Structure formats: structure tokens, C-alpha cells
């Protein structure tokens, strides 16, 4: 197979499995589905996509890419694998996997003998890959031909009379370690020191008058000694740069000091056999706190601030209610939202209220509930730790507001958990070690917030009960790679078994020495107030709690029978007396609902109405000789009475007693907020296969078209509209390879012309190209180009 001429070419030659790997590794390439390999390559070459891919690289992968970019230079020269291996200061076996990875991800392409980085990837790395400055040709290319001649002379080289040839000669000399060493042997120590400072980057230094013209003879300072010999070049009037080849030579022919392909060790700081227990206890607590939050917000949903989010005062109120500080309160609120349990109800006076999904959640057993919370936590991009900090405008960030999403949050959280899970059970490590590990794993992705994200992950993991005593618990481990049901099962085994009986005591308490089975718990919660929760629940009977259960129609005997059945011990006399006492008083006063009332001092008149058939729809009930209650509104009662020939009078409207049962607020159904990862979702294996198949058919279509075009020789092809990214990529490729392409362009009159061009440079939306027919160089603006096809 001939060597591929472009990334598209390279991709076309890959097998399905490799393409599938690419799409899985860079999900953004598959959404939307690319039509053919050319557009796949074009999309892979955009800066945005390349940046995403580069940001996901680990430290050694990034290092190898930097080395490749540095060797390849701005001219995108192909690099042979042995040279790359040498540049990485590591044996081939250690470098190769990373090269393969870059190749698979289409950040590099070409055969081993001629590897090239994708230009966009090089751009992402910036102008000084691996801390290396511009190449000699670029660094000295800004000099006037006269000064290049001076340099050649000062280096004792024979001039060629041609500036380009002269520059090549200078480059050849300075890039040769042996000859460079010879040259430096005479260098003043201070000059050596200067070079040493720049060798490992950053390669530039600020000096005034960097672009002064200096000859060896007049070089006074150590700096001038280097400038005169071209070992440093001016990078503007105030900066000098160490040319790339010189730096590589000074680095002993390598680009990297070492390849950091060993993940930083996680030093074991602590070991405890109680991790699972402590975390499981906390997990139960987490579920309880979220439940308490839902209860609180169900009864009194806090308002949504006009700018979105939850007010500081409401947050404090929540903290008081949950008996936690504001940081933790913010965490629980965010967690409840991330799990889809609370949402903005969307009313005119918007409030944060439980969602219908929260009712389903409340019906689940504790382990399942935890698994859902923990899953949401692991995925969410929300960072509650930022609550209370000042944003760019100087106002404090509020919980549940829009500016708490951070793309690095979810990856860091997962990395921390994975790092902890890589330790033996019960082992903890230090925050610094975790930070080092996370930074090594994705140096570009974790960003400046990384130290705090790691700290917050540890803090939140402990609150949630995924971590205990600084180590990851068994159920926290399961969270990483197991479905929620399995996570819940792991946790269930760690939590106490439900109990069926309580202990009743003479101090009017009932103690459930473990989680109580549901029917008993529900009934007991009606008859007694909860005093304390945790592994056990302490209930306290008070007159008002007993009254509450009687309000639901239970008699004293019902309550006592229930207690006898639910208790492992006899019912204490004091409790029995309490129940009987309340029962005795219960219902002494009676309250009912009436829509209106009927009052008459004349008992006979009232009796007449009550007896009348026409009044039956009013559902009148006599409360006292002179008073009757009606289950119809006053207007209806008036109408009916008047129709009966009576002359009723209205008695004002404050007799109207309407008892409404309190309503629990719910939002309309709401979607679980999608984590803001900046990434499209990872495509499923099926999707990937389908996309690859689509690419293949797109390619064969393109080949068929190209074939048809080739048959009509020299004729401009029928150009299909190409999207700008593909067009640009095709033009860049053509420029890099010096190939000619057909370019379709609309002229000023709107007519489409198709001509053959050899693009020279593509930059800033402008294409400079040689017109093959006229031999003129033209500069075209990219937006006028409607299509590009290989000539």
C-alpha cells in the first residue's frame, strides 16, 4: 500500500476496528455522523475537536505528542519512529504504545517511517511544544540577507551567496551536537549559564535590544557572544529565543528529559478495617438528609432567585433544618437536583420543589436510594464547593445557580475515585498524591481548579458515604463500574438488617434498635415523634403525637393493640395511661366542614326546611335546635330556600369554614439535568459500527465519483458543495503536500467558476494559491470557496 498522502487517506486505509476505536475515543467525531472519511478527517482536523482530544491525553501521551510536534516543526515534516523514540529518552517499547494511541485518535497519522502530527493538534500545543522555541530557519529567517551573511562569516562557514542556502548551512552547523560542542568550548561561562537557563524551556528570555546587530568581534556581553554566533535569535525587539535545534542538541539530542509514563505512586497514609462500616453508616445518613430536604421543600418550597439559584438565607435555613453547615447544605441541595429529585417548578413565583420522581425515589429501599444519589454525584458536572465564592462580577455564587458547572468536575471525581479504588481495601492516601495522580492522568483537562476539585471530591465522597476514613468503601468501588442495582446490593449487605419490634420504655419512648420494617415504622411515625435517628430510631410519645394518630380514627385500644404487637416488651403503664388520657379527651371538641350554615331563632322554621324534600340537595344537618349546616354554598342555599317560598337573609360570609388539606408542592415532570461535560455522550458500540459502515459507503460513493471524473480527463469535476471545515482541511493538505486541487468559487457576479490551483498557504481565512493555468498567485477568501476536489 502506498504511503497515505493525507489524514483522510490514512483514515481510509484503516480497518473498521481501528476506526471504531477512533470514534469511541473521540465521540465528537460521530455526532453528527460524518458522510465519508474525508469529512471525518476534516472534522478531526478542526481545532475544537483536536483540543478535546489533546485535553484527554495523559501525561506520557501528551509528552510523546509534544515530541512529535517539536520534531515535525512548523513545516510539518514527517518524523521517523526511531527519531521520535530517541527524542523521548525512553526505550521503544515504552514509547510505542503512546504513539499508537495518538495514531488511533488521529492526532498523528502516516506510517511509522513518516509520522506527522495533525496540524490542529500542534496548534493546540502552542508555539513552544516541549518547551522548545522556533526552528533555526524561522528564528533567523527574519534577519536581512546581509546579516545572515555576517552570521555565516562569523561562524566561519563558506557563504553560498544565497540567503536560503546560507541559512541551511548555519542550521546544519548549530544542530550538529559535535560541532555545537566545539563551538561552545570557547564560550564564556556566563554564556553557558544563559543557554542552560533556556535549554529546558521556556525558550525565550526578555532582554532589551534583542535585535541589535552584533558581530563576533564586537560581542561584549555573554548575551552578545551567543547572539553573534546565532545560538540565540531575536524574537522581537525585547526577546531572545533559543532556536529549537540548538536546544535539542543541548538536550543531548532528545526532546524530553524523561518520559513520565509511570503514574505517580499513591503513598498509603492510613489503613483501617472500619472503612466500609463508617462509609455505610454515612451512606444511610446521606439518604436520610436528602429525605429531610425533600420533606422540608415539599412543605415550603424555597423561591428560585431571579438570577436562578437558592438564596443564602434559604441555604442557611436548609442547613439548620438538616443540622449541617452551609457547605454541606449546598452539597445536599445540589445532589438532590442532580439526581432529579428537586427542580424549579416553573410557576410564576418560581420555587424549588420536589419532582414527581422524588416520590418514586422515596418508595425505594435505602440502598437503592443511595445508589441513585451516588450515581448522580459521580456524573454531575456541578461543583457545590464553589457556592459562596465570588464570581467574575464580584457577587457570591449561590447554590443551584447556573454558574456551578465545571467540565473538569466529573472527570476529576471519577479519577480520584478510581485512584482510591486502585489501593487495597481500607487504604487511604494523601490529597497531594491524589492530585499528582489526577494531574498525571489528564494534565490539560483538570485545569487550575484541580487541587480544589480533588479536595472537594474527598469531602463530598465522605459526606455521601462513598468514602470512609479517607478510603473508598466497597460500595464506592462498585459505583465505578457496576449498575445501580449491584451497587445497592453491596451497600445493603453493609447496612443493618431491618427489625420488626421496638422496645417500649416507661419514659414514654420507643426504641427501634435498627431500621424498622415499613408497616411498623409508618404506624409508629404517626403515633410518636422521632427523637433521634441513626442506626436506631428513638420515638417519643407525647399527648400531641397520640392525638395525631387518634385524629386518623384509631381508638385507644387500636393504638395499644398495635403497640403490644410491635413491642418486644410489655407496654409500660405510663404509656398506657397517656394513650387512654388522650383518648378520653379526644373529640371533646368537634370540628367539621360546612359550606354554609342556616340559623333561625324560630326552631319550627328550621324544622320545616329540614323536612322539606326540596332542601334535600343542600344536605342540611341539624347541629343544634337553631342551627343547621349545609353542604352547599350560600348562594345555592339562598336560591333553594327562595324557591321554597322562604325569605332567607344573608348573614355575612365569615361563617364559611372550608378546611383544605395541605397540598404538597410538586414540579411538573422534569428531566434530570445533563452534566455539562463539553463532550457529546459516548456513542454506543452499535452507533460506532453504524457510523463506520456509513463512512465506508460514503467513501465508495466518492471513489465512484472520482472515477467518473477521471474518465473525463482534465475536465473540471462537478463540484459538490463542501463544508468550510472540509474545504479548509483539503486546501491545507494540498498546501502541505504541494498538490493541485480543483477549487470552485463564486465570482463577484455570483457565477461559479472551477479552476485548478496549487495552494501555497492557508491562513486567517485567506488562501494563497498558484493558478495552474495562468501561473499567477492569487489570494482568495475562504468563504467564497464553494467546493474543493483533488485534481
Amino acid at each position: 500500500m502506498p504511503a497515505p498522502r493525507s489524514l483522510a487517506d490514512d483514515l481510509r486505509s484503516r480497518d473498521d476496528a481501528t476506526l471504531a476505536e477512533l470514534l469511541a475515543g473521540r465521540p465528537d467525531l460521530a455526532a453528527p455522523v460524518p458522510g465519508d472519511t474525508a469529512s471525518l478527517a476534516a472534522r478531526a482536523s478542526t481545532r475544537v475537536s483536536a483540543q478535546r482530544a489533546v485535553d484527554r491525553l495523559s501525561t506520557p501521551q501528551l509528552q510523546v505528542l509534544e515530541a512529535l510536534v517539536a520534531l515535525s516543526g512548523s513545516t510539518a515534516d514527517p518524523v521517523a519512529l526511531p527519531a521520535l523514540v530517541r527524542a523521548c529518552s525512553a526505550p521503544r517499547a515504552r514509547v510505542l504504545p503512546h504513539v499508537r494511541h495518538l495514531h488511533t485518535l488521529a492526532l498523528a497519522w502516516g506510517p511509522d517511517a513518516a509520522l506527522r502530527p495533525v496540524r490542529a493538534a500542534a496548534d493546540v500545543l502552542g508555539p513552544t511544544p516541549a518547551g522548545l522555541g522556533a526552528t533555526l530557519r524561522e528564528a533567523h529567517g527574519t534577519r536581512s540577507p546581509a546579516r545572515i551573511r555576517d552570521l555565516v562569516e562569523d561562524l566561519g562557514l563558506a557563504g553560498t551567496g544565497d540567503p536560503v542556502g546560507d541559512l541551511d548551512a548555519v542550521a546544519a552547523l548549530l544542530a550538529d551536537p559535535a560541532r555545537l560542542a566545539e563551538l561552545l568550548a570557547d564560550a564564556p561561562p556566563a554564556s553557558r549559564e544563559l543557554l542552560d537557563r533556556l535549554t529546558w524551556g521556556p525558550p525565550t528570555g526578555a532582554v532589551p535590544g534583542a535585535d541589535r546587530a552584533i558581530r563576533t568581534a564586537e560581542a561584549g556581553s555573554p548575551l552578545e557572544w551567543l547572539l553573534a554566533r546565532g545560538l540565540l535569535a531575536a524574537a522581537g525587539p525585547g526577546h531572545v529565543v533559543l532556536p529549537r535545534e540548538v536546544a535539542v542538541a543541548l538536550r543531548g539530542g532528545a526532546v524530553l528529559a524523561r518520559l513520565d509514563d509511570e503514574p505517580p505512586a499513591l503513598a498509603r497514609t492510613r489503613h483501617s478495617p472500619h472503612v466500609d462500616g463508617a462509609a455505610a453508616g454515612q451512606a444511610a445518613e446521606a439518604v436520610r438528609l436528602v429525605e429531610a430536604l425533600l420533606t422540608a421543600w415539599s412543605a415550603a418550597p424555597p423561591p428560585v432567585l431571579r438570577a436562578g439559584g437558592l438564596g443564602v438565607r434559604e441555604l442557611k435555613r436548609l442547613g439548620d433544618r438538616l443540622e449541617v453547615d452551609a457547605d454541606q447544605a449546598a452539597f445536599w441541595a445540589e445532589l438532590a437536583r442532580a439526581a432529579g429529585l428537586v427542580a424549579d417548578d416553573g410557576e410564576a413565583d418560581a420555587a424549588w420543589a420536589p419532582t414527581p420522581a422524588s416520590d418514586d425515589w422515596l418508595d425505594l429501599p435505602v440502598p437503592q436510594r443511595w445508589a441513585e444519589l451516588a450515581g448522580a454525584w459521580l456524573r454531575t458536572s456541578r461543583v457545590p464547593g464553589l457556592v459562596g465564592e465570588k464570581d467574575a462580577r464580584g457577587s457570591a455564587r449561590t447554590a443551584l445557580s447556573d454558574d456551578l458547572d465545571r467540565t473538569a468536575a466529573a472527570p476529576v471525581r471519577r479519577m480520584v475515585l478510581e485512584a482510591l479504588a486502585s489501593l487495597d481495601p481500607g487504604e487511604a492516601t494523601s490529597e497531594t498524591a491524589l492530585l499528582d495522580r489526577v494531574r498525571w492522568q489528564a494534565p490539560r483537562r483538570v485545569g487550575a481548579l484541580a487541587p480544589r476539585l480533588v479536595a472537594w471530591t474527598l469531602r463530598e465522597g465522605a459526606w455521601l458515604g462513598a468514602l470512609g476514613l479517607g478510603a473508598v468503601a466497597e460500595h464506592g468501588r462498585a459505583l465505578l463500574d457496576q449498575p445501580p442495582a449491584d451497587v445497592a446490593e453491596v451497600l445493603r449487605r453493609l447496612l443493618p438488617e431491618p427489625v420488626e419490634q421496638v422496645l417500649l420504655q416507661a419514659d414514654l419512648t420507643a426504641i427501634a434498635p435498627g431500621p424498622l420494617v415499613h408497616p411498623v415504622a409508618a404506624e409508629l411515625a404517626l403515633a410518636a415523634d422521632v427523637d433521634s435517628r441513626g442506626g436506631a430510631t428513638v420515638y417519643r410519645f407525647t399527648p400531641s403525637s397520640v392525638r395525631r394518630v387518634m385524629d386518623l380514627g384509631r381508638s385507644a385500644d387500636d393504638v395499644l393493640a398495635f403497640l403490644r404487637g410491635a413491642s418486644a416488651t410489655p407496654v409500660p403503664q405510663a404509656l398506657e395511661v397517656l394513650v387512654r388520657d388522650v383518648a378520653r379527651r379526644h373529640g371533646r371538641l368537634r370540628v367539621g366542614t360546612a359550606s354554609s350554615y342556616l340559623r333561625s331563632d324560630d326552631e319550627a322554621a328550621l324544622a320545616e326546611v329540614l323536612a322539606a324534600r326540596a332542601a334535600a340537595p343542600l344536605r342540611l344537618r341539624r347541629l343544634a335546635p337553631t342551627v343547621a349546616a349545609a353542604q352547599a354554598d350560600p348562594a345555592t342555599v339562598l336560591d333553594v330556600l327562595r324557591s321554597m317560598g322562604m325569605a332567607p337573609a344573608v348573614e355575612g360570609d365569615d361563617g364559611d369554614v372550608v378546611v383544605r388539606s395541605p397540598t404538597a408542592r410538586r414540579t411538573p415532570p422534569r428531566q434530570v439535568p445533563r452534566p455539562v461535560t463539553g463532550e457529546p455522550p459516548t456513542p454506543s458500540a452499535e452507533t460506532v459500527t453504524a457510523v463506520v459502515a456509513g463512512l465506508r459507503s460514503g467513501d465508495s460513493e466518492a471513489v465512484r465519483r472520482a472515477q467518473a471524473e477521471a474518465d473525463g480527463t482534465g475536465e473540471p469535476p462537478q463540484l459538490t458543495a463542501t463544508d468550510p471545515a472540509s474545504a479548509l482541511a483539503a486546501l491545507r493538505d494540498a498546501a502541505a503536500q504541494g498538490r493541485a486541487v480543483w477549487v470552485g468559487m463564486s465570482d463577484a457576479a455570483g457565477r461559479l467558476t472551477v479552476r485548478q490551483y496549487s495552494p501555497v498557504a492557508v491562513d486567517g481565512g485567506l488562501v494563497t494559491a498558484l493558478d495552474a493555468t495562468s501561473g499567477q498567485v492569487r489570494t482568495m477568501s475562504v468563504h467564497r470557496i464553494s467546493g474543493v476536489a483533488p485534481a
Partner: protein
Amino acid sequence: MTDGPLIVQSDKTLLLEVDHPTSAAARKAIAPFAELERAPEHVHTYRITPLGLWNARAAGHDAEQVVDALIEHSRYPVPHALLVDVAETMDRYGRLRLEKDGDRLVLHATDVPVLEEVLRSKKVAPLVGERLDRESVLVHPSERGNLKQVLLKLGWPAEDLAGYVDGEAHPIELDEDGWAIRPYQQQAVDGFWDGGSGVVVLPCGAGKTIVGAGAMAKAKATTLVLVTNTVSARQWRSELLKRTSLTEDEIGEYTGSKKEVRPVTIATYQVLTTRRKGVYPHLELLDARDWGLVVYDEVHLLPAPIFRMTADLQARRRLGLTATLVREDGREGEVFSLIGPKRFDAPWKDIEAQGWIAPADCVEVRVTLPDGERLAYATAEPEEKYRLCATSSSKTRVVEQLVRANPGEQTLVIGQYLDQLAEIGEHLDAPVITGETSVAERQRLFDAFRAGDIHVLVVSKVANFSIDLPEASLAVQVSGSFGSRQEEAQRLGRLLRPKADGRTARFYTVVARDTVDADFAAHRQRFLAEQGYAYSIVDADDLPHAGSAAAGA
């Protein structure tokens, strides 16, 4: 997961299942740092408080021991957050230390940022002097107590290592003739002495005076004893004469009537807190001698001014005695910082089980208000309500009935309202002792009661404390200071001296049904119910009219 007897709750209470085979071991493990809050029949409740944790630190326990004890005895996983909180709280104690440096008192920090933090507090600034170096700052010796108090409030309790003055030596020995100090009393004395200063918690009737005497015998120095009232002062005096080598001449009484300052001086809180024209004329008593020991009786009643005075006594050993650290005013923290941490504690039922205090039956007798009184009650102003129902005429009949039903028992009728007591006294034909009764008359009546010449005494709240009436075996409470839990405990305590024939004491509370009286009674009883005294409840109509004891329903 173990199958321990302990359940750790998220609100930092610990539930101890009493019948569990290892509950004794668990109790022992958690006792140093957790306060017993309730001790009903099946499950005892302990609470972990910062004060309790610091008490434990003061006694030399570290966070690891506490965490281990919780994990080892806990039946279920202990929430991580709680363990962290325990460790962090304990870690706060002792970061600051009060130390002696020659003659100077120095606050020394093992953690400089903590020192910086507290020095920045406005409350600390006036109490300290010159900064000596990064880690220490000079403290005015007179501010030792205030500083400790402020630091405790700031959450950084200081460890007081500055020691004590020996005081003026005075020979005092226990005179164990015909009696012996009980083992728990000896433990209490030793616990106090090893700790330097602090509080001993013992139930009423468990012999707190002996603990005081034991402490004096250890100190062998001049001692100031602060007690609640004159009668109690006399009792201390006679007890000390009986139990120690001290003679009449060595014990002084400093009360409203006498102002003697002797090697051992017993003073009342009242005389110390008497104010004339804005000054406390008797305050100088505190400096009248070089006291080697200050004993505070009934420390839970210590009035606020005494706290302030006590702040100046930090160089002297201080012993607090009480039946309960529960203060209705919530000043437990001041007791901790100014008198000292709790050094000894024993649940009532434990001591009862050992036979040192008499067992007691508590019975609540419910009466129904007559219709006329019910209407008056229903329409009364809120502040009048308690008085109206507590002094119901129906109670007087029930008291009479109860007393008649138990002839021969030494009986106390205790109440709050003087006219009610007068009425009851008249009905029962029994003497009435109130605040208005002269000290001599009180003494005479108490002596007659002890001797068995009088069987029934009607007393007001003057008899709440420190009156030793060993043979009282029946008490009827008709009214009280609203919902005061410690008053209830004190009143029961009157009955708990072991009886010669080992019989059970009986404590009746007469309560008007369906009124605030019943609500207050429920609140008052909570403490005793929590200590394991189960109240039984009977209806006044079900009381036997004559003959022997009225058994609980």
C-alpha cells in the same frame, strides 16, 4: 459489623441496650466521654457533647480511644462524619495550655494559628498581657478563670496545668469510727484529687458530704464550704464533727446570723451574694484565709454571681458536689470551666443496687378538678393557671387520704404555695415549715421528726435541699416550681437514705388531670424516669381509703 450493645445515632446520642451480655463493658468504655442522659429500663441513652469529650481529654483519654470504643461496641456502622467530628472536637482541647512560668501565668499554644485566632477575639484581648513569643502570651493571674471561660466559649478549651496553691495547712482526718467510707465515695475522692479540681456527681442520699469530708482529709488544709442555706450549713457542720477529726472550735459558720471565720468555714450562697449598695460586703470571706480547698455543695444551683467570684479562685482546689449536672439555666459550660470537669459519676440505680440508697416507688396520683375549679381554670390568665390547678382543693383531700392510708410512715408533704401548705397542715394537724419559719424552729421540728416524735411535716421548698431526714419514707408532692426537673430529683432524694429496715420509700406526686399541672409533672418526671425511676399512675378515685400501702396500678 459486630453485634455490640451500642447504637450510635446521628445526633450523637448513644443507645446502650442494658440487657445485652456485653453492655457492662460497653458502658465502661463510653462512660469517660459520654454523659448518661436517660436510664429507663431497657435502653440507656448517652450523649456525646463537646464538654463530655473535653472531660475525657482532661482525664487523659484520646480521640483514638473514643473512636475505638464507639466502633468496637457499636452494633451498626458508625457514620464517618460523626467519627471525624469526635476526633476534631477532642483535638481542640489542650491546643492551649495555662502554665506556670516562675511566678507568671502563661497561655501557651502548641498550635500557633489557634493562639492567633483566640487573641484576635475581643473577649480575650483584655484578659491577656504581653506576647512573650510566637507560642505564648502572659495572662493576668486574676483572669485565669475568666480566660478559661472565654476560651471554652470560643471552642478552644484550655488545659489548666498551672497547678494549685497548697493553702494554709490544717490537720484533718476522717474519723472512721463505727462507719467506713464507701467504695464509690473513696473513688469519687480519688478521682477528684487526681484531677485537681472538678465535680462529683452522686445521687441524693448517696453521702456527698462524706465525699466532701474525704476531700478535706486529702487536702489537709483550711477549707471553705459553700452551701445553699443555713439549715444545710448546720447539717454539714454536724456531719463533719461526726465524720472527721475536726472539733467544734475548728468549724465556723458564716451565715446570715453568724459570721465566724475558722479553719473550716461553712458559708451560704445567699450571704455571699448579698448586695448592699452595689457591692458584695461578704466577698472578702473568699480571701479571708489562704484556703486550700473550696467545696461547692449543690453545684447545679450555684448562683451566677458565685460563678463570677469563683473565676478569681482558680488557684485553689475546687470540689463541686451535685446530684445532677442538669442546670435549668443551661450553664453547664461554666461549671466545666470554672469549677472543673466532671471527675466522678454514678447512675442512681447502680448505687441503689449496691444498697447504698433506698429503693423508691414513684406514684403519680391524678385528681380531677371539681367543675367549679375547672371553669375558673379554663378562663384564668395564663400566668395564674398553674397556681390554680396546682392548689386545687381536691388535692388536699387526696393528701389527707394518702397520709391516713400510711400511718406510722415518716411523711413529708412538699409544696410550693404557702396558703395551700397552711391548709394542708391544718387538715392533717401537722406543723408547717416555710421560709418564714425561724431557723431555730425549723431545727427543732426537724429534730423532732428525726426522733420520730412528729410523723408528718408539711414543708415548702426550703426543704428541697440538703436537709438530712434519714427516716423520711413517704413524701407527697402537691405543687412545685413549674417543670423543674432537678427539684423533682431533690425531693425524691429526701427519701433515699437507706432505711433501717430496708423498706422501700414511696414518693407520691398529686397532679391535676388535663391541666398544665400534668404537663409540668411530665416534664419534671422526665429526669427521674431517665434515671430509671418508673412512675406508675393511679387515679385518685382508685386510692384505697384506709389500711396499708397504696400500690401502683
